């Protein structure tokens, strides 16, 4: 009898392990951070898309974000939102930071290279609904009081991005709600937060008290940045001297390839074609020390403004999107070219 009991206990224990781990696996793979936070008491109703508006859907939102237009409720293709850009010109729609608690451009570059995604001036739309504020930091210097409404209101932020950043028309309510619905589909996942066993235990405990829930919510919200900060940085005072840092040509090449060429290769979003040829490099290198629009210092730190007839402009890199070291790396790449070990 004892023998059967032991076998039974072993079998039961064996079954118990996968049973215990399965909710954790489900949490790791699928659960959205926003859903978890709502379950822990956070109110996100104001960010929920209003899908009762005719024509609004996440599918349409994805089309607008990626192509510039979606199908309206009448089944007609709406007018393209912008003739110059789409959202993905400047924003990724996947995770682009290895550590969501840090805004580290150098780590981000390595991560985007590993993942084969572009390195862009705009913050990824992945997790946009999880952030509290938009157009942070120095963006008021660029857009003035237009950021007042956009900073705390995701819908206003989408509209500001459409009209000012993309230099396009105003979005209709069904388009805004569609984009918002799509952004909800690309919200942060719990698996992105890299929780340890204790933290996982805290959020998955079915018998949480209100105090536990508050603690769990604080813990979860502390696992990612709730805003994407922006600091405008001027170019070096003496452009012939540079910023005094020693650059790494390999990193400069990666930055050029992942970021500059995203817009400039074959004039995808730009009037200027750049490629990996020596001619492109020489063209940029010759202007580095000048105050011309071709100067890397000028365009990376101040950007290029839209003009009548040439609305396609270049947004500047904030220090969160391009560190001083990366700037030095890029200049070094222009000076000496592609290191042989990575050219292949």
């Amino acid at each position, binding site marked *: 009898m004892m023998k059967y009991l032991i076998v039974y206990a072993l079998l039961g224990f064996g079954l118990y392990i996968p049973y215990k781990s399965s909710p954790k696996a489900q949490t790791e793979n699928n659960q959205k951070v926003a859903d978890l936070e709502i379950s822990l008491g956070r109110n996100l109703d104001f960010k929920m898309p209003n899908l009762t508006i005719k024509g609004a859907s996440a599918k349409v939102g994805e089309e607008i974000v990626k192509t510039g237009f979606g199908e309206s409720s009448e089944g007609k293709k709406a007018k393209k939102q912008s003739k110059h850009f789409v959202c993905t010109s400047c924003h990724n729609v996947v995770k682009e930071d290895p550590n969501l608690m840090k805004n580290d451009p150098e780590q981000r570059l390595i991560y985007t290279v590993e993942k084969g995604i572009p390195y862009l001036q705009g913050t990824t739309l992945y997790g946009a609904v999880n952030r509290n504020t938009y157009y942070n930091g120095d963006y008021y210097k660029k857009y003035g009081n237009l950021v007042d409404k956009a900073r705390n209101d995701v819908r206003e932020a989408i509209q500001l991005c459409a009209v000012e950043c993309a230099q396009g028309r105003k979005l209709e309510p069904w388009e805004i709600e569609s984009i918002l619905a799509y952004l909800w589909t690309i919200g942060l996942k719990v698996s992105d937060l890299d929780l340890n066993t204790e933290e996982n235990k805290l959020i998955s405990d079915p018998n949480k008290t209100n105090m536990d829930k508050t603690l769990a919510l604080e813990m979860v919200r502390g696992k990612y940045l709730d805003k994407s900060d922006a600091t405008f940085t001027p170019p070096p005072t003496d452009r012939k001297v540079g910023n005094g840092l020693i650059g790494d040509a390999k990193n400069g090449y990666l930055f050029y390839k992942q970021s500059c060429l995203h817009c400039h290769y074959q004039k995808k979003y730009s009037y200027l074609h750049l*490629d990996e040829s020596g*001619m492109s490099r020489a*063209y940029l290198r010759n202007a580095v020390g000048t105050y011309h629009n*071709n100067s890397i210092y000028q365009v990376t730190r101040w950007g290029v403004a839209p003009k009548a007839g040439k609305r396609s402009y270049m947004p500047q890199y904030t220090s969160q999107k391009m560190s001083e070291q990366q700037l030095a790396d890029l200049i070094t790449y222009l000076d000496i070219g592609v290191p042989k070990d990575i050219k292949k």
Partner: protein
Amino acid sequence: MKFKHLAIIYTFIVLIMAVGIKINAQSKVFQTFKDTRVINSHSTETLKAGKMDIRIGHRFGDLAGEAGGWPSFYGLESAQDIMTGVEYGVNNGLTVGVTRYKGSGPLKQNVNGMAKVKILEQDLNGKNSFSLAMVGITTFSTMAKSETEGVLNYFAKTNHRLSYHLEMIMARKFGNRFSLQLSSAITHRNIVSSSEENSTISLGAASRIQMTKAMGLIFDIKKPFLPNKNGFQHWPAGVGFEWETGGGHVFQLNVTNATGLNETDYIPYTNSDWTKGQFRLGFTISRLFTI
């Protein structure tokens, strides 16, 4: 079947083909030529979808020879031909345009309709090793009707104001710096002098050597097979520089013996001889807009 009927049918066919052409620019060789023209000739380049190209071109008087030199300030004080026009990229493979030319041949005040179709595009993976384009041009002379019977602008019929040009262009970019194109064309004028044929076959070549990112050296030449005009002086040819400003401008400065700017003009009517100083400065400015 008359030439004009063939021309109309042919134009329809290439336009129908163009509707189906979807060119994915990212996998294709980029800018075999920087502009849709290489001095006098059309290149294989078409405008990107939604781009509008405002073009202004100029051919001055003879730089040297009897008509040139100091009295005409090396030709700068006279204008052999002036072009203003607009072209538009319907899609990445079809460009249409309307252009007005002063005209340097016997028919002047010309209005041109143009359609260019990119049939093949050289790609980066070697599947297509060259680009192929077809351009069709119809020229309508709006000059006043002459009272003198026998001159070309007597215009006994309205049809006599019309000329046509159809050209097949093949081009290849070799590396980053060298491009070459060959072309064959037929130019048909509804009214010609009694010593000429209405239809003229021509062959052409053009090339670009990219010297820096912004500047290139360009050449073009045409050989028209015209009866009674077999000398080299009747070959319109040009050499020039091409600048791209990076802001959507392409600027060409050239020297050519062609007096006209349009194919229906300079192919049949070039009579200028390089060896007699009958060549001129010319320029073309192209400005792209996104509309």
